[in-house]
């Protein structure tokens, strides 16, 4: 075996590598040690801290109204409907990245649904209950108390799908529909969740668990990128151990990621079987209780926003929605962000929230 480099050069290269390695190891250790100090001083209270009032409570669902930031906010109000799988406070994860705060600063009047945490007694709650009874009650409450004929509904992820189904049934109450990273076409090839869902026996899971445990769903999400999500990110975060800002951001996200409510069994059954496995919604075969859901009935202005880096709900699942509705005023917006980043990132602060707010204001006249 011959040497690749002359001896002197070899020795110098070896020394430099040794130096960089020792230096790297020392820095790593130092960061780990500093981390304990930074951890002790960290305050995560910023999560979900934009001022708001609980205005309606039905069973475990709470409707919150954010205190407007401007004297005369845009009317009609906007109701944000989040998914059941994670908590809605990702949209208010910290003050300098709060999607909600940005909408308020830009003059919107914002309500949000917190679905709460399903417990064993909720296992029989159906998709129809969530959409007609809980979401429906929230919409009615806003319309009645604010004395407006219609409101804008903005749904994130599963909340977007719910908002669309609600709009089909109660279009007279909806001024505009905004969907953010929402799945509509479930028969796609570029999303692991979509692929895996076809191999799951949903009835058996519901029979075994009643409600689907949030921890089980977290494990599924980790499996989307096992090394990065179970090991890699905990190695990389050490680089931020001496940076309270970066570490704070990491820990807030970490708290949100693992704060996954259990899923009410009956709703989960319908959601997974009818939509994820059989793709009934875009085939026009989905029924909410005994009501057939025909997306073509939607005629209200539609803004469909999605992320090109979204690996949970790839935009190929969101984009087709616009072709299925009859709305004349409809737009598809794509941003280079992921599923959380679409509502909790620098780009969402600088570009996505301002553009959505402008669209809503423009369509509220």
């Amino acid at each position: 075996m011959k040497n690749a480099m002359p001896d002197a050069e070899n020795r110098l290269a070896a020394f430099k590598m040794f130096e960089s390695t020792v230096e790297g190891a020392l820095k790593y250790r130092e960061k780990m040690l500093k981390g304990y100090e930074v951890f002790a001083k960290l305050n995560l209270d910023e999560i979900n801290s934009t001022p708001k009032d609980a205005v309606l409570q039905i069973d475990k669902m709470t409707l919150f109204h954010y205190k407007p930031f401007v004297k005369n906010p845009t009317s009609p109000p906007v109701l944000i409907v989040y998914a059941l799988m994670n908590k809605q406070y990702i949209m208010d994860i910290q003050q300098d990245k709060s999607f909600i705060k940005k909408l308020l600063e830009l003059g919107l009047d914002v309500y949000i649904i917190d679905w709460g945490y399903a417990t064993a007694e909720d296992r029989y709650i159906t998709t129809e209950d969530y959409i007609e009874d809980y979401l429906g009650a929230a919409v009615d409450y806003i319309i009645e108390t604010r004395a407006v004929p219609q409101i804008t509904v903005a749904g994130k992820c599963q909340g977007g799908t719910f908002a669309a189904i609600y709009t089909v049934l109660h279009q007279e109450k909806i001024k505009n529909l905004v969907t953010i990273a929402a799945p509509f076409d479930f028969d796609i090839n570029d999303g692991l969740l979509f692929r895996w869902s076809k191999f799951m026996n949903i009835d058996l899971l519901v029979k075994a668990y009643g409600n689907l445990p949030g921890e089980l769903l977290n494990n599924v999400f980790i499996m989307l990128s096992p090394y990065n999500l179970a090991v890699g990110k905990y190695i990389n975060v050490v680089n931020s151990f001496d940076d309270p800002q970066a570490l704070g951001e990491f820990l807030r996200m970490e708290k949100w990621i693992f704060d996954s409510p259990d899923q009410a069994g009956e709703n989960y059954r319908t959601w997974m079987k009818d939509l994820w496995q059989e793709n009934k919604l875009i085939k026009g075969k989905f029924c909410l209780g005994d009501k057939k859901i025909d997306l073509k009935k939607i005629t209200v202005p539609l803004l469909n926003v999605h992320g090109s880096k979204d690996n949970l709900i790839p935009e190929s699942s969101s984009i087709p929605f616009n072709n299925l509705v009859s709305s004349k005023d409809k737009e598809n917006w794509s941003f280079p962000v992921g599923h959380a980043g679409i509502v909790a990132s620098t780009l969402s602060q600088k570009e996505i929230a301002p553009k959505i707010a402008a669209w809503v204001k423009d369509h509220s006249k």
Partner: protein
Amino acid sequence: MPNASYQKYFDAQKAMFEEWRNFMKANFFKDDREAEAAFFNPEEYFAKFKDAPQDFWKKAEDSYKAYQAIYELWKKLSEDKKIPDNKDMLEIYDEWARQFFSLLKDSVTPAMPGYMKDFAAKFVGEMESGNAMLSDYLKNWSASAETLNNAFRDSVSKGPKGYIDFLNIWQENYEKTFGKLLNSPTYGKEMEFWRLLKASLDRFIKYDIAARKFSSRLGEIMQDATKQTLEDYVDMHAKGTQPKTFEEFYKYWARMVSDSYQKVLSSDDISTLAGNMVDAMSQFKIEFDKLCEMYLSVLPIPKNSDMDALYKTVYELKKELRALKQEVRANEKRNA
């Protein structure tokens, strides 16, 4: 003499359970105490599969070990100034492979979901103990000893892929032998208890096998990616474009691992393994929950099945109440 026949049949059933207990002791449990616990107090034994997830610090510490292990690998490559050839690469790879299972045990396993940790630990333990464990496995199945022996030997040399082949044969044998016994009819005053106990053990074994197959496949991906990284390193070193610092090397390796996962996770093969594991887990939980209820039936406490009936009633009442409230509101609005 009907009583004598009954006694013989009863003794036969007892003998079968004794044999089964020995089999479980030999293959699934660390010692007599653990086997006894699983057999007579399954709720205690299975409780450990419900561990809470590791806290953040534990994950960070364990991740650091993984980082160190891959660093050692890189150090070997970078300290050797000659251009590595394929022989060097294989030697280094072998050394890494020897460390692989301790790496899995120390760093990857703690980051796994609680209920999978023990399965993963057992998988690693078995691979490490090799032939010693093999003889234990085979003493119960002398009829298929040779096939299993070959398969297990292959699994040691072929790594996780060979281990999956071995598990397939093991499962086939199990289903033809003990699986049948565990699903055979029971009788007597406590027949339902024995049926549930046997069914729970059967579903647990099936879940165990499914989880091992799935985690082995994940291990295989990591091994392949590491092997590929080393091959790439040989090529890059020849061109002088190899990662110059450990950080660069780690990033390259981590990207290779992630890319490999992305490629493989979308395959039908791993989707099927994942689906089978989830199904097996559900089947086990269903049977084991029934068994737990039977254990608890002597206590004056409501059980899940009692509560489910109550939940259904509560759900229906709540729904009715919501509808009535809505009707009242509509009436008030009309009359206003």
